């Protein structure tokens, strides 16, 4: 098993009602698997929200196998400026 931390921002935080979640996951769990878990947890609140994935503060272009102690953020559309 591996442990990962999910930090929540903006619409993800609003949908889940928390800043941080921790998960104990099977080895070989991928970023997309975890996204499905997060979307399910949010009910329908994230249905129309595109999410980019950052692992350890770097955007991921492809599905990635998660590692123990990874920090994952599902990034809704950003709004800086």
């Amino acid at each position, binding site marked *: 098993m591996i442990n990962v931390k999910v930090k929540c*921002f*903006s619409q993800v935080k609003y949908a889940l009602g928390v800043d941080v979640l921790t998960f104990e996951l099977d080895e070989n769990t991928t970023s997309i698997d975890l996204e499905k878990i997060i979307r399910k947890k949010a009910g329908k609140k994230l249905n129309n929200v595109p999410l980019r994935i*950052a692992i350890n*503060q*770097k*955007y991921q272009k492809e599905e990635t196998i998660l590692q123990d102690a990874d920090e994952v953020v599902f990034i809704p559309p*950003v*709004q*800086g*400026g």
Partner: protein
Amino acid sequence: MVIVEIANKSIKSFGITNDDNQNGAELVFNGRVRGTEKGKPIKYLEYEYYEGMAEAELKHLANKVCKKFTINHLYCRHRVGKVKAGELSIHIMILSKHRKEAIKAMDWFIFELKKNVPIWKWAILNDGRKIPSDCMH
């Protein structure tokens, strides 16, 4: 040279100089919080950011702009936390030999910033309600 900062305090200008004989163009962009959001009066915008990654993405973009366009310096300050209507949320200064490259670089930098840097904002209305602020202009 690149300087980028994200801070929860009022933005101060990078200032001007009268002894730079390399950069004929000094272009400044100030982004300011408007008093309305979707037609409704607001108290303030509340910015949140992903600490660490937001700074890294901003710096990465600034370095990319300096390579993509012929500019010499890019300085950027972005505010987070509560920003009242009328206050600056972002201040950018680009210095280059000629104006055209600075103008192109500024537009590209802001466009990419609004697409990639993990910063978000909510508008807090006068009646206390919180609504997403999704201006991409």
